[in-house]
C-alpha cells in the first residue's frame, strides 16, 4: 500500500488514532513516520504536513498497530483478505489457520526450540489424559511425543 501522507513511498506502518472511541487508521511510510515522531516530541515546531494536523488534535491517542500491515512488504490486512497471497515471509502474520505444520523442518533453522516446546506441551497434556484414565488418547499423544523426539534428535 502507498503511504497516505506523502503518497509516494510504500507504507509499512499502520497508525491508529482514537478519538472518543472512534478508531481511525492511516498507513504511512517510515520517512513520514519519523517526521511524525519528530513533530510529536517537539523537535520540529512548524507543521510539516497538513495531514499530520488531524492526528495531533487534543484528546487523540496514537499508537502503531502491527496487526494491520505487514512491516516488510506493506500489504494491509484488508489487501490480504482480497489477494489471499503472501508477498513476503512476514505476511504469515495474516494467516489464520488452526492446522499447524507437521513435516519437514529446515535443518539450519532454529526450530529445535519449537519442537522442544511442543514436546513439553504434549507431555503435560499426556499427564492430564493419564490422570483422567483416557488411555487410548494418551497412547496417541505418547506416539506423537516419540515422533517429535525423533525429529529433534535427527536435527542434532
Amino acid at each position, binding site marked *: 500500500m502507498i503511504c497516505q501522507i506523502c503518497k509516494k513511498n510504500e507504507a509499512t506502518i499502520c497508525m491508529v488514532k482514537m478519538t472518543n472511541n472512534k478508531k481511525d487508521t492511516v498507513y504511512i511510510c517510515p520517512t513520514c513516520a519519523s517526521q511524525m515522531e519528530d513533530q510529536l516530541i517537539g523537535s520540529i515546531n512548524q507543521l510539516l504536513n497538513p495531514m499530520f494536523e488531524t492526528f495531533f488534535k487534543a484528546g487523540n491517542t496514537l499508537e502503531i498497530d502491527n496487526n494491520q500491515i505487514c512491516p*516488510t*512488504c506493506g500489504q494491509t490486512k484488508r489487501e490480504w483478505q482480497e489477494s489471499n*497471497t503472501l508477498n*513476503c*515471509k512476514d505476511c504469515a502474520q495474516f494467516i489464520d489457520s488452526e492446522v499447524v*505444520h507437521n*513435516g*519437514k523442518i*529446515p535443518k539450519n533453522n532454529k526450530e529445535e526450540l519449537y519442537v522442544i516446546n511442543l514436546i513439553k506441551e504434549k507431555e503435560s497434556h499426556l499427564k492430564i489424559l493419564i490422570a483422567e484414565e483416557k488411555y487410548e488418547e494418551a497412547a496417541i499423544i505418547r506416539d506423537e511425543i516419540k515422533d517429535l523426539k525423533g525429529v529433534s534428535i535427527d536435527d542434532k
Partner: protein
Amino acid sequence: MINKLPNWLNAKGNESDIVISSRVRLARNVDNLLFPHRMTAEDKDKLIDSIGETISSSSFRKETGEMKLLKLDELSGLDREFLLEKHLISLNMLDNYHNRGIVLGLDESISILINEEDHFRIQSFFSGLNLKDALVIADRVDDALEKFYSYAYHEKYGYLTSCPTNIGTGVRFSVMMHLPALSMTGGLKDIQRSLKSDGFVIRGFFGEGSEGYGSLYQISNQFTIGVKEDEIMLGLEKRINEVIVKEKKSRETLFKQKTYEMQDIIYRAYGNLKYSVLLTTKEGMNNVSLIRLGVERGLTFDEHIDYKQLNSLIVLAQPAGLQSYFGKSMSPEERERHRPRLFKEILKIGG
C-alpha cells in the same frame, strides 16, 4: 533445441501399464526476499545468477550431480513450448517467461523452477508409480539448496509460499494415469467424488478442461499443511492403488461383455493412424489411448508395440514435440500433415 525425451516416459516403473509417471514438487522461498510477484526484474535476475553460481559449486554438485541452468529469456519460443509439453514448466511460466529460469538435471528427471509462483519449485519425476524415490530425490536437492539459502519458514505454518494453499510442507505429489475403461464406463465420477472428500483431486492431464483427452489423468493431493510429507504420500499411493484395481476390473468387464465392440474400436484406431493423411494431437492421442488398452489386453498388431513407444507420443504428438522430432519449425497445417508420419514411425505402422 532441447530435444531429448524425459526419463519418466520410459515405462520402466511399477504399474507402468496404467501409471505413466509420478511427480513430486516442493515449493520454497528465500526468507529475505519479497516473493516473485513482488520482485523487480533486477532482483529476479540476481536470484537466477546466484542459482547459477550455486549449482556450479562443488559442494552442491556433490549432492545433486551435474545440473545446468536455462534462462527462459534466452531460449526460443519453441524450446520454451517443448519444456511445457515435457511438463517441466507451467503454462503460467510459458506465458510470462521474463526473468525466470529452470535448472535441469542431466536426464531431466530433477529440475528447479526459478521465480515461478515461488522462488524455487523443486520437481522430481519417475516413471510408473514411484512417489517414494521421487520424494527422496526432491528432498536431496532441497537439502542441498538449504545450505545456500535461508528459507522462508514459520514455526507454526511451516514453509511459506506465495499462495496459502501450499504452505506447510509445500509438497505436491501427482501421479499420471491412463484410465480408458473408467472414462468409457463413466466410473470416474464416483472416483472424483471420493477422492475429493479425502483431499485429493483428479484432473485431465493436458490441463484444466482437457478431461478425457487421451484418457490421461493426473491425481494429486490438495492439502499441504498438518500432515507429514510421507503420510500425504502414503495416502495418495493407497488411493492410486484403489483406482488401478477399479480400472483393471472395468477393463475386464468391458472386454467380457463387449468383446467384439472393443476389438473393433481398437483396431479401427490403429487403422486410423495407419491411413490418416491429416491428424490433430487430440485425435492422435485418443487413438494411442485405445491402442494402449489393446496392448494391455493382449491384442496383437502388425508389429509389436510397447508402452515406451506409446508414452513417447504423449510428448512428441504435441506441437513443439512434433517440430522437435522432425527438426524444423512448422505451421499448424504442416504439423497436421506431418503428424501421421510421426505416429507411424514411432509405432512402426506399415513397415
